[in-house]
């Protein structure tokens, strides 16, 4: 039984702390000399570049934002799971398939945990993976183009939250379900949850050359809530660790009913063993229905394919592959030290951190020292696997990151602080307040064998008074700490877009040289591309009209079109002929029930317009492209549905 006082503390904690924090709010005026030094540390002079790229999840924006560290400047929002009218993602004909799912076209999601691909446990900067939490999906972003390259839906999952963490050679990106559901889905009473609902943990293979994703197998686990996960690394490579809560299997009022067990579990999964099992023909192929959407930089188009089956594995059929480690107080994050020695359970209703020792876990497994079982899966004895306890003095630990110097940094949501402690001795070295109620923290490479322990970012859930007020709705706040010394130093504070649940950062020196500047027009294989202005034309097929259009500073080819009729469906297939860095052109058409387009050099995009009224209607370039940008416009003559005016087009006549 969990003590009720913890529940009370969870509620009262923030209130008490908010009032106690008034005199140490980290404002620069509190220490002038130090503050000026700090200003230098975050100052990136005009024209200079940041040291790190930081990729932050957008939470309910469904996207990813790209920031520079230490400046906190935002460079880009990468559309992933949500329609993005800024550039037409999810609106253009080419990108609509990216948002197809088994539920049809889904325009928005909740993106959570970005993770950068790794080779030998170190960041290699090829791809960024991120999970859509609401309609379970995993996306892969290409870090040459900073665009979403692939999205795979995850069947049998709901609340895709213990995702999207990758193994140390990017063998798998892993997606676990937070909400257990009937597997397969069926009409049944909710109260029959216990024993009937299941939690699917999906291991999605990543093709080493292309990054192409494919669900290798799904572990169909007991119906707990699989909250977060992390891969083993180094000596624990081959294992994956998942936190669980609601081992009570409650289906209502979870805030009380799922907080009754004093201990939930961290599930240790030996994925190498299961991989071997399925490679030897193990597992059951079951019917499923999930979308696999792939974008091509050659055709500048996405395709969506529905997959019809998935390989499931009953964990009890693979003895020695899955073990439960009892972990106090509804753990949230589970984090693995850079060496792979320690697995940190962040019991979110606790003051203390539970650290498991990988060596002890292996010894306990080999000694078969079990403390019963849950649904046929062995439970290890807490004392046998415990490596240490961090008596933090804080409340509500959520996540831990590492600096590669033997230190760990844990965020405490309720006491609103970051605590630095030492691996092995478990002593607390430093603590600094956050503003306010920090969720995740992030150290560049902090989820790898080789962290770059210079900065720590706290990603906070509550902003309140940190910036100028903007009405009831505020952006979230992030703080940047210098962690290069013994004590953490608060350097800077900046708002972040959406709700960054987690972030991943990488030295700019790895990514910047690879960043693509243009798409080569010569390599454009879009079926509706206009690669030469002599091919620009307008083609009628029944009441569909295809406009093959080219754009270059500062005109469209063609820019006068006649013969369009009310009731037509007009497809503008527009190719940007520029081959110069940072010369996109935009397109908008009056009365268009769609977003505009932003088309990069060498790219083709398509937008649909359904003219409703007779007249002569203009379109124009929406991106101030050149000195003659204002002249970059055209007209379309729309005639009555029954008129017999032939299609014609021209430029400069």
């Amino acid at each position, binding site marked *: 039984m969990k003590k009720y006082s913890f529940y009370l503390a969870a509620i009262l904690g923030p209130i008490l702390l908010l009032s106690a924090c008034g005199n140490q709010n980290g404002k620069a005026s509190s220490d002038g000399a130090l503050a000026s030094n700090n200003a230098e540390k975050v100052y990136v002079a005009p024209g200079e570049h940041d040291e790190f790229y930081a990729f932050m999840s957008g939470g309910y924006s469904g996207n990813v934002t790209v920031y520079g560290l230490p400046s906190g400047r935002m460079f880009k929002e990468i559309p992933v799971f949500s329609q993005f009218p800024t550039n037409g993602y999810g609106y253009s004909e080419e990108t609509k398939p990216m948002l197809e799912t088994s539920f049809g076209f889904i325009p928005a999601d909740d993106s959570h945990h970005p993770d950068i691909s790794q080779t030998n446990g170190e960041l290699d900067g090829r791809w960024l993976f991120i999970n859509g939490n609401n309609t379970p999906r995993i996306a892969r972003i290409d870090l040459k183009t900073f665009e979403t390259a692939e999205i795979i839906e995850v069947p049998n999952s709901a609340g895709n939250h213990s995702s999207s963490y990758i193994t140390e050679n990017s063998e798998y990106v892993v997606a676990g379900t937070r909400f257990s559901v009937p597997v397969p889905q069926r009409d049944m009473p909710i109260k029959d949850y216990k024993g009937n609902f299941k939690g699917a943990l999906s291991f999605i293979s990543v093709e080493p050359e292309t990054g192409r994703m494919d669900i290798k197998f799904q572990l169909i686990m007991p119906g707990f809530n699989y909250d977060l996960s992390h891969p083993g690394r180094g000596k624990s490579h081959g294992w994956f660790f998942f936190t669980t809560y609601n081992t009570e299997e409650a289906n209502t009022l979870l805030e009380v009913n799922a907080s009754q067990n004093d201990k939930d579990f961290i599930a240790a999964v030996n994925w190498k063993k299961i991989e071997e099992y399925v490679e030897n023909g193990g597992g059951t192929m079951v019917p499923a229905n999930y979308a696999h959407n792939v974008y091509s930089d050659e055709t500048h188009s996405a395709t969506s394919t529905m997959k019809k089956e998935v390989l499931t594995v009953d964990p009890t059929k693979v003895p020695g592959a899955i073990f439960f480690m009892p972990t106090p107080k509804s753990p949230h994050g589970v984090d693995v030290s850079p060496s792979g020695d320690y697995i940190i359970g962040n019991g979110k209703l606790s003051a203390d951190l539970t650290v498991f020792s990988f060596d002890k876990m292996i010894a306990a497994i080999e000694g078969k020292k079990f403390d019963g079982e849950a649904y046929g899966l062995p439970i290890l004895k807490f004392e046998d696997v415990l490596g240490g306890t961090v008596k933090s003095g804080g409340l509500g630990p959520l996540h831990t990151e590492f600096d590669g110097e033997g230190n760990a940094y844990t965020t405490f949501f309720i006491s609103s602080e970051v605590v630095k402690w030492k691996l092995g001795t478990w002593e607390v070295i430093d603590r600094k307040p956050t503003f306010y109620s920090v969720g995740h923290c992030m150290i560049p490479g902090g989820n790898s064998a080789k962290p770059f322990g210079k900065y720590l970012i706290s990603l906070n859930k509550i902003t309140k008074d940190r910036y100028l007020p903007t009405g009831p709705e505020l952006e979230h706040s992030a703080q940047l700490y210098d962690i290069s010394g013994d004590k953490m130093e608060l350097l800077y504070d900046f708002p972040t877009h959406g709700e960054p649940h987690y972030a991943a950062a990488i030295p700019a020196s790895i990514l910047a040289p690879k960043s693509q500047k*243009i798409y080569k027009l010569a390599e454009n294989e879009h079926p509706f591309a206009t690669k030469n202005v002599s091919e620009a034309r307008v083609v009628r097929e029944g009441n569909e009209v295809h406009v093959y259009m080219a754009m*270059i*500073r500062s005109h469209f080819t063609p820019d006068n079109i006649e013969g369009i009729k009310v009731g037509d469906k007009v497809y503008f297939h527009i190719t940007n002929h*520029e*081959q*110069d*860095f940072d010369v996109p052109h935009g397109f908008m058409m009056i009365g268009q029930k769609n977003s505009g387009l932003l088309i990069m050099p060498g790219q083709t995009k398509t937008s649909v317009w359904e003219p409703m009224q007779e007249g002569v209607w203009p379109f124009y370039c929406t991106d101030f492209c050149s*000195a*003659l940008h204002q002249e970059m416009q055209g007209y379309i003559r729309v005639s009555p549905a029954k008129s017999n005016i032939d299609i014609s087009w021209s430029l400069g006549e």
Partner: protein
Amino acid sequence: MKKASVIMIVGSLCLLGLFAFPLWNIMLGAPQYPDPLGMNIHISGIEGVSEFDLQNIDGLNHYIGMKTIPKADEMWEFNVFPSVIIGMVLLGVLLGILGFMQKIDYRYFLGWFVLMSILGVMGMYDFNLWLTDYGSNLDPHAIIKVTNEDGTPMTYKPPLFGYKKLLNFDVSSMPATGAWLMFVGMSLTVIAFLVGWKSKKSQTNQ
């Protein structure tokens, strides 16, 4: 004289560098072009410094009514120059061999240098004519027409040598690797002449 002949052969062979390296380089930088656009002028044609530089220079130049940068087959020079260079290399090597065999004396080396210098000056004169035409023979319907203070239309002739500001562009024009190799080669032929002269004098003095 043998030494002088070898230097003569090496000097004339240096001209072959023009087939591997550009003769001249023109770079165009502007506030919005922190990485400048550039063209390398080879004896056989004009190439962009980066893959799409020529296209981008043409794209910008259309605003001020300049013609597009000529392709190799649009200028007779790009056919004739390689033949002239090959001819001069062969002549230089032949003179060197004949000198080595004591069939001719050192004064022929100076003759080669003088001929090459005349051809070089003619080439530069021709290049300058093209630059002038390229920069001042503008489309009367140009989008942007700028006039000088005296009311005459502004022209955009890039400098033959050195730096010039053209509207928002900083333009610099310099000999490139091929030209430097040619200058080294031509200097060697003068050295060959001097060495030959010196050895002749010492022979006479004996």
